[in-house]
Every structure is written in C-alpha cells, then in structure tokens.
C-alpha cells in the first residue's frame, strides 16, 4: 500500500494549524430562560472541519430594521384586524375603531418596509407576475396585497365615516387575511437554508402568531378605554403566554441550533423580549383595568413582540456566519442515519 491520498482520511489536517487542526465547539452552558432556575442544556464537544472557518450558507441580505419591523407590523396589523372584526360583530365601537386604525396603519407601513427592503424597489410589482405556493414570499404578497387594500380602505372609511356596510365587509375581509399575514412570516423565515430558522420551522408560525396577538392586544389596550378593552387584554395575555411557551421550545429543542438564541446580541434581544412580554402580561392581569396600567402593560407587550422579531431575525443571521451550525447538525443527522434520503456523498 502506498501513502498519499490512497489511505482513507489518513490523518490529513489543514497544514497551517498544527497537529490538532480542526475547530471544535467549546463546551458551554446555556442559561435557561426565566429566573435562573437552572435548566442547563449541554452542547457536547464536537469536532468539525471547515474551509478556513468560512461560512457555508450565505447570510441573508435582508436588511434590519426593515424585515424585523415588517414582521412586527404585519403581525400587529393582522391580529388587530381580527379583533376589530369580531368586536364590530359584537358591537364594540371603540375597540373596533382602534383595531381598524392599527390594522390600516400597520399594513401600510409594512408594505413600505417590505418594498424598501427590495434590491430594486421599483420592481415591487414583479411580485405579482406569478403565484407560487413554493415561495412563502409569493404567497405572502398575495396575503399582504388584499389585506392592506382591505385594511387600509376600512381604516379610511372609518376615519371619514362613510359607507358603514362596506366598512364591515372590508373589516371582515382584512380579518380573513389577518391571521395568515401574522403567521406566514414564520414560514418566510423557516423556509430557508438559515440553520437556526429552518430548525424551528414547526414553531416559528406559532411564535409569530402569539407575538402578533400580544402586540395587537397591547396596542389596543393603550388606545381603547379600559371598560371596553377587556377582549384586547385577554387576547394580549393569551398571545404572550403562547409566545413565551413556544419561544422556550425554540430556545431549547434544537441542540446546537438553539445556541444563537442565547448568545451575543440576539441572546440579549431574546432575553429582553421575554422579560418585556412576561412583565407586560403580568401587569395586564394586575393593573390592566386602570388607564396607566393599561398604557404601561400595552407598551411592554408591544415592545416584547418587537424585540422577539429582532431577536429571532438576528439569531438566524448569526447562525449563518459560523460554519459549525451547518456542518455539525448535518454530520449528526448523517451519523444518526435518520435521513429518509441518501447521503450526497458516494464512496
């Protein structure tokens, strides 16, 4: 037998790195969420190889704050439109009006954020050339377009006081698209090769749906007189609870891919989001029936939702920048043999 490349993986290491040349993830403790009740998840020492430590998948070119802001605005607008439509049908005029304004303004701003994020904003209408179920952005365009048309028109006639029946119809149309608008953004992020987003694909729609209800309910609590804001309080607290529960799963269920949600700037954002959301929900229950309490808790809930969007967005961005988040999980699933498909390597 000869040497050289004729022996399988015969001890070759990248030359300029000395005898132990492969990167390894350091053993680290991940702090559990909440009040330091030591849930400790360990990430084992993993050796992995990379090409000079360079990232494998590209970092999304989506801009911050455009996209996280779009996620937040779309969510708040969507949940507000649902709340407004049901409030309208049960004759709660003040709650209805605030919900419609929130939905209208939110939808308009989210269109602006989405268009501004494009590399060629003047070509926004190219989105409407085709309809593709395989592209969440295409589906989202066909959710956002009717939603913003209906919600914007409803808010406008609400302001002007015209066409009461048309107003109710517009409100119902926007409510139909409101839920999908808030939750499809979870699919938008998850349907990518970004490791930490894709791993959480079953949870992100619920995170964003819950977060949307916390934000929409919170905003309504700020502007609606407390005696009519009962539904907003209930929706906000339920949304916050769902958001916190599902975020906990995102942060702990995905092994090494949960790591970016704990570390660095995204980790701080997620921590701040959880704190704000939990405080907002708690304050709503305790003091939501007072004007000041409603304003404070509503603001906290909306801020928590906004921070969640930024945290999730930036955690995904961080997961693209280190090759370990691509190599290690893929190696693990290859070794576990849990794939339903063949290895891409033919030996």
């Amino acid at each position, binding site marked *: 037998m000869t040497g050289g490349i004729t022996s399988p993986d015969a001890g070759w290491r990248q030359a300029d790195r000395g005898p132990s040349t492969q990167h390894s993830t350091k053993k680290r403790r991940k702090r559990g969420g909440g009040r330091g009740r030591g849930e400790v998840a360990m990430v084992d020492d993993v050796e992995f190889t990379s090409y*000079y430590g360079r990232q494998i998948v590209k970092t999304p070119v989506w801009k911050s704050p455009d996209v996280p802001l779009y996620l937040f605005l779309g969510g708040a607008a969507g949940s507000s439109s649902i709340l407004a439509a049901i409030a309208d049908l*049960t004759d709660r005029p003040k709650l209805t009006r605030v919900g419609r304004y929130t939905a209208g303004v939110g939808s308009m701003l989210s269109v602006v954020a989405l268009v501004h994020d494009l590399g060629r904003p003047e070509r926004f209408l190219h989105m409407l050339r085709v309809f593709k179920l395989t592209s969440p952005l295409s589906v989202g365009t066909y959710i956002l377009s009717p939603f913003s048309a209906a919600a914007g028109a409803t808010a406008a006639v609400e302001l002007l006081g015209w066409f009461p029946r048309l107003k109710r119809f517009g409100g119902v149309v926007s409510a139909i698209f409101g839920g999908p608008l808030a939750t499809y953004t979870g699919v938008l992020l998850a349907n990518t090769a970004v490791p930490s987003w894709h791993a959480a694909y*079953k949870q992100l729609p619920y995170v964003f749906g819950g977060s949307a209800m916390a934000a929409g309910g919170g905003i309504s609590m700020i502007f609606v007189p407390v005696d009519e804001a009962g539904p907003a309080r209930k929706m906000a607290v339920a949304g916050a609870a769902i958001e916190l529960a599902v975020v906990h799963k995102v942060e702990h269920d995905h092994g090494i891919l949960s790591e970016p949600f704990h570390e660095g700037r995204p980790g701080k954002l997620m921590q701040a989001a959880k704190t704000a959301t939990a405080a907002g929900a708690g304050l709503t229950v305790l003091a939501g029936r007072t004007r000041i309490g409603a304003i404070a808790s509503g603001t906290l809930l909306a801020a928590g939702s906004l921070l969640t969007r930024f945290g999730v967005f930036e955690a995904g961005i961080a997961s693209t920048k280190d090759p370990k988040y691509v190599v290690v999980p893929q190696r693990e699933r290859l070794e576990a043999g849990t794939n339903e498909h063949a290895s891409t390597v033919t030996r």
Partner: protein
Amino acid sequence: MTSVSSASPGLRGLRDVKNRLFGPLPDVAQEAGYEPDHPKRVGFFTDTSVCIGCKACEVACKEWNTLPMDDSHGQRDALGLSGMSYDNTGQLGANSWRHVAFIEQSRAVDLPMPTFGRPGDDRHDHGPSPANAGDPISLANAQQSVLNAEALSEFDPQTGQTGADKQIRWLMSSDVCKHCTHAGCLDVCPTGALFRSEFGTVVVQGDICNGCGYCVAACPYGVIDQRKDDGRVFKCTMCYDRLTDGLQPACATACPTTSIQFGDLDELQARADARLATLKAQGVETARLYGRDENDGVGGDGAFFLLLDEPEVYGLPPDPIVTTRDLPAMWKAAGKAAVMMIGVAATAVLGSRRR
C-alpha cells in the same frame, strides 16, 4: 403507463410527476413544463483529483460573463488578499461563479515508504473500462495512462514529502453552482426571475429579478448572492447563452486538465462512476463523488464533484437538503397558527362582558 388526459400538458404534468418538492426526478425540464422534445439535461462533472488550481475556469467565467472584480468577501472593486492561501476569490458569489478552493494539508507519516514498481505495470488490471462513456477511447486512454495510482500517490505534485516525518498535500477544487434537481433558490423566487432552462439548468433573468434576496437565504450551498450596488442577484448560468449556440460553458472550455467536464448529465454520471471505480481500484480510497446521488437531499446535483476529502473540507455542506422539503409541514403549522389566532380572538371577545 400512459394515462390519457384531456387536460393541458401543464396540468397533466402536475398530476403525473411525483417528487415535486423532494426526491429523484427523472426529467427536470419536463417537470418544469417543457415539451418532451426538449434537449437533454446537461451538467458539470468536476474531477478535483486532476485539478491543478490554475484558475483558468475563474478567469474564463469572469471574461465571458463580464463579471466585476471583488475581493474574497464579495466587496466590489476591491483588490484584497485573503491572507489564508492562494485562494483570493474566497467564495462563490454574485461576481464569482467559479471558485477554486485551495486546501493545504499535512500529516505525520507513520506508514512504510511506498513500494515502487514501474509505472503502468498493472495498467490493464484496473477497474471497469469507462468505454461506455461518451468519447470513449480518448477519455479512457487519458484516464488509464496519466491519472493512475502511481501518478496520484508517488509522482503527483499534490502529495510531496517535506522532511522525514511530514507529508504535505494540496487539494484544489473548482466550485460552482450545483444546478440542483430541487433548487431552493428556484422554489422560493417570488417573481419567476429564476427559472429552469430547457437544458435543466437554473438561471436568473436579470430583467425580472427585483432583488428580494429570498434565493440568497434559501440556497443550501451558499452560491447565489446579491450585487449590493445593483440590487439584483447573480449566479452561474452554465453559460446559457453559449449552450443555446451549441458551445460548451466557458469554464469547461478553458480547463486544461479536463477537471471540469461538461456534457449530458447521464453521460457525465456514467463517466464519474467509472472514474471513481478506477481510482478505487488503484487504491485511492479517499475518492468520493459529491452530489452524484439522485436520492440525496436535493434530488442530485446538475453539477457534481469527485472529492478527495470530506465535503466540508472544501467548504461544501455534508448533507444539504432543499428547504422546501419541509414546506408542506410549515404551511400546515402556519394555517393552524392562523386558526388559533382567530380562536383566541373570538374567545377573548365572546368571553368578555359588554361594557
């Protein structure tokens, strides 16, 4: 097997084709809606065991496609050295559609010195003849005479001895867009700017792309990228313009060692299988094909590789999966979450006393 349908070809295709999101597809172009008389699917077979790292492919690509200059981090019009190897291209991106990776590896020698025989003594015993591949005679001759085990293990400049206890080898590999059977970029493009050509390749239409950037995030290989000052995305077209005129892609034309081979995909696959068998029979145990298997996570690559080490050594993902495999489950979750929102809102309103 022929099911008669009165529906349009497109609809018939929709009904008949399996594995629309995941798994092997026998005919990608037909699945994309082309008539059955479309050209055969073409591809690249990049045999890195004969790559000499000359970067002729990079230059030819830049010249033919008039790609702008950038540094190893994709910064436009910047001249910079990566400082890590001869590789100053660094990555595939909007301005680099071929990228030659350089990996310098060393290892301690704990094996006995190679035994020498006359080169070519055992030439006739090796491997199945790749004669069934296209252009059989010249190709088989080339593989059997020059690229045999001796060349690779003893006289190959890629493996040299430095000092008594250390060996050095250089791996070089020309990376390119994989033109996947299930291309994530193509699936998620919301404008239809990315399309499947009649040759089975994946191409961006520059006059349609609005720079949404979804494809950049969706590519499991990190190939496609946005040109910042332009706003649109760019990637390898497999020289679509040349293909329509019956020419080979610029990189394959320029490659001096036939490391980059262009041709009909099925023919290239047969050629690659034969090459792998040849190398294995000659004792090159580290040889492996990457992206050849049509049952892998992307349904097989239109541009696949013969590698001499693990994929991640070259900066390739070891188990890429097209993200849209999981899309049905994602839509289901989003639908349920939307229903949940309506349920929560309705409960909140109906559970509150009026005024």
